[in-house]
């Protein structure tokens, strides 16, 4: 017997995931056209690996395949990872990363909705810790032709010193260790900088933001997390930049570099592993931005969003528990 309510809004998990995938399309277009077209190949590899991994675990767990495969959540994880990884990462590394995300992080905790950590970010961190050399080889935008990129992805020579470059964040970070170097001197000498951040890469940021706005408009995500994340990142980087512009990059640089925009709209907003209460979302996203900035500026890694997300994932129960919204009627009789 079915109980009330007997009517339902035509919403589905599949629809939510599809919207996220749609929102990623502008960024994929920019990525493929401005930086490395091989990202399309990576997306395909990651998608296949994710679906295959998901199917394998479901089979082992004795669960039906169709509902879990068709909810597209594995595809979202796969796409996010493919966009986070360096585009010339060998195919087996992409597959390994995706499998870590799907099998170890998602299914070992019970599958969709049960994982306390963001699968894509755990996989990203695991890969950067396990293969630091591979994970820090980024092609300079537009310097490799598609065949070379494809060759690198599908295997082959990895003597890359000549053709790879550090990311903008990495260049600034390592450059500042040289005595006398300032942010300005580093940005003016390196050929890899554009207007505000890495050449080519800086155009990804607005593309991600565009997708994020689409998600906001569709009501898939709420304004809390992106606003708190970007606001905090801008505020704290501005604070340091204003005190010492020679040794701290500008807020604009921070917002346009690395995983800031991707994180703000697609990573931090992951509902499963993130905070859920309105106030909790603000605290969660703001703390991620704070930790990410600290890692970027003072830590051992050039980019800190992934580690920050994981650190805050651990705090989610604490945040949620202490930010429960006021329940209807529990204010007393204070009529406005």
């Amino acid at each position, binding site marked *: *017997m*079915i*109980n*009330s*309510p*007997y*009517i*339902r*809004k035509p*919403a*589905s*998990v599949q*629809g*939510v995931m599809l919207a996220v995938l749609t929102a990623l399309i502008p960024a994929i277009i920019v990525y493929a056209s401005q930086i490395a077209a091989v990202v399309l190949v990576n997306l395909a590899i990651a998608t296949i690996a994710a679906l295959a991994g998901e199917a394998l675990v479901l089979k082992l767990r004795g669960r039906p395949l169709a*509902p879990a495969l068709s*909810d597209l*959540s594995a595809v979202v994880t796969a796409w996010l990872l493919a966009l986070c990884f360096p585009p010339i990462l060998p195919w087996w590394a992409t597959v390994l990363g995706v499998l870590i995300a799907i099998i170890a992080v998602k299914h070992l905790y019970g*599958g*969709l*909705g*049960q994982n306390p950590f963001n699968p894509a970010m755990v996989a990203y961190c695991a890969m950067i810790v396990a293969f630091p050399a591979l994970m820090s080889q980024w092609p300079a935008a537009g310097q490799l032709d598609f065949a070379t990129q494809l060759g690198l992805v599908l295997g082959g020579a990895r003597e890359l010193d000549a053709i790879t470059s550090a990311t903008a964040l990495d260049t600034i970070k390592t450059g500042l260790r040289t005595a006398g170097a300032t942010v300005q001197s580093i940005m003016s000498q390196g050929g890899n900088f554009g207007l505000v951040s890495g050449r080519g890469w800086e155009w990804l940021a607005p593309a991600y933001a565009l997708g994020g706005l689409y998600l906001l408009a569709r009501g*898939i995500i*709420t304004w809390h997390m992106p606003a708190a994340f970007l606001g905090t990142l801008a505020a704290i980087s501005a604070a340091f930049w204003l005190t010492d512009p020679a040794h701290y990059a500008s807020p604009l640089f921070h917002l346009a570099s690395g995983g800031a925009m991707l994180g703000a709209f697609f990573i931090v907003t992951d*509902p*499963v592993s*993130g905070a*859920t*209460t309105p106030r909790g979302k603000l605290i969660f996203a703001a703390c991620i931005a704070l930790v990410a900035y600290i890692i970027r500026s003072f830590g051992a890694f050039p980019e800190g969003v992934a580690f920050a997300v994981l650190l805050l994932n651990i705090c989610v129960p604490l945040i*949620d528990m202490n930010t*429960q*919204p*006021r*329940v*209807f*009627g*529990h*204010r007393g*009789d204070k*009529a*406005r």
Partner: protein
Amino acid sequence: MITRLFSFKGGVKPESHKNESSGTPILTAPLPKRLVIPLRQSIRSTARCLVEPGQKVLKGEHIGEGEGGLGTSVHASTSGTVVEIASYPMAHASGLETLSVVIEPDGEDRWIDHTSLDLRTVSREEALAWLRGCGIVGMGGAGFPTHVKLGGGRGIDTLVINGAECEPWITCDDRLMRERAPDVLSGAMILRELIGAKRVLVGIEDNKPEAIAAMQTAASGLGDDVAVVPVPTLYPAGGEKQLIRVLTGVEIPQGKLGTDFGVQCFNVGTANAVHRAIRFGEPLVSRVVTLTGNVARPGNYEVLLGTQVSELLALAGPKADTDRYIMGGPMMGTELQSLSVPVTKGTNCIIAASPALFPPPPPELPCIRCGACARACPADLQPFELYWFSRAKNFGKAQEYHLFDCIECGCCAFVCPSRIPLVDYYRFAKGEIWARERERQASDQARERFEFRNYRQEREKEEKAAKLAAKAAETRAKLAESGEAPAPPAEAEDPKKALVAAALARAKQQQAAVMPKNTDGLSADVQAEIADIEARREKLNPQDADKAP
């Protein structure tokens, strides 16, 4: 009077489907062949039966006396003969049966004598007793006795009349307000008089312009402090607490009554019933019911209480592909397990459902904590947290997260992209918590009684020993006097055993006597008496079963 509107958080906007049934005037349903009037009109209490089979009753005759503080009276809905007092299924999700009075109408529909009540000549208490006698309860669905709600006190500032009717498909209040606006407002004035409210606000969702117009016309002569207020169409604006919030800004917490906050709320149907009860002395014997959904002739009908749904449905003509029937609205109603259930005071709508109109829910997927439910919840709860806790049977945590503030409006399940039957989990958890509370009370009571019994036995033993010792001392003293040796103490158990054996023998005799039902040797008088007693016992027993703990 200009009323500032407030808003509540959350809410959903399902398709309203009001037009199907709102276009035609209220028709009076023909007299049914049989009326099954449950003595239990709500789940709160059962009325005591006042009639017996074979008895002739008139329309409006008192057939059930409400018992306890929450009881209300039950009346015959038409004139006729009581044919049976037996258990019939009731309109409840459990599908359980309840004791009902079955009346065969005589077709005359003859009223019992009834007169109006002049409020100016009676005290408030007498007026409330009058309403109780007329069996007036809330007609919005919950069936809470009106006199109890009115009895709360007089420090009321605002009387809210609920004409929001936010559930999709239902239009009975809409039609009632369009056609009987003066009656509804007359009832509202009586209610206002009884609670001494300063102002009256009639809240009607703005998707019912005709009803708003009719009510405004009717209210135009009633002074400045009576206002008909259109409220935004947003389910569940018709929830009592939500409507009060929208109209007055007051939030009434769970477990509290509006009286404490100077607000009281009644349904328009209730106001109409109060009007009939006071102005004409008519008990509540009929109500307006919407028949809609997958039927040929949707509309509203004035239906006698006790009319079985099967007979009622024939008026609307359900289509062939109808697969189930829903009593109440699609958001909070219940699926009928039997079409023999009767219309009760709380029945506002019967929807014929077909797979096309109400598709079966798609397969359930895991919760992804997307928070859509939290954004839709009008009680500002975190439904997915409640779901996790209820599902894990972690009831303590569920209560900590305010499970009992949930009004089961269904908004969360309506929006859930994983199509989880969230409300089912809350109902389950609430029932389980109540059951545990009952069990805990029972076990506390048992522990206390067990410990007291042990204490009593200990005390009795001590007293006995003391007595024996005293006696022994006495005997010894006597013996010492007489110089005789003490006799061995008599076997204490012996006489008792003998007694039991004797009783056993007697019982065996008795049983032997009873077994063949040896009544031949008795006089006609005695036989008649036995039959009488048997009949009474028969009558009592079913009720016993219903009341069993």
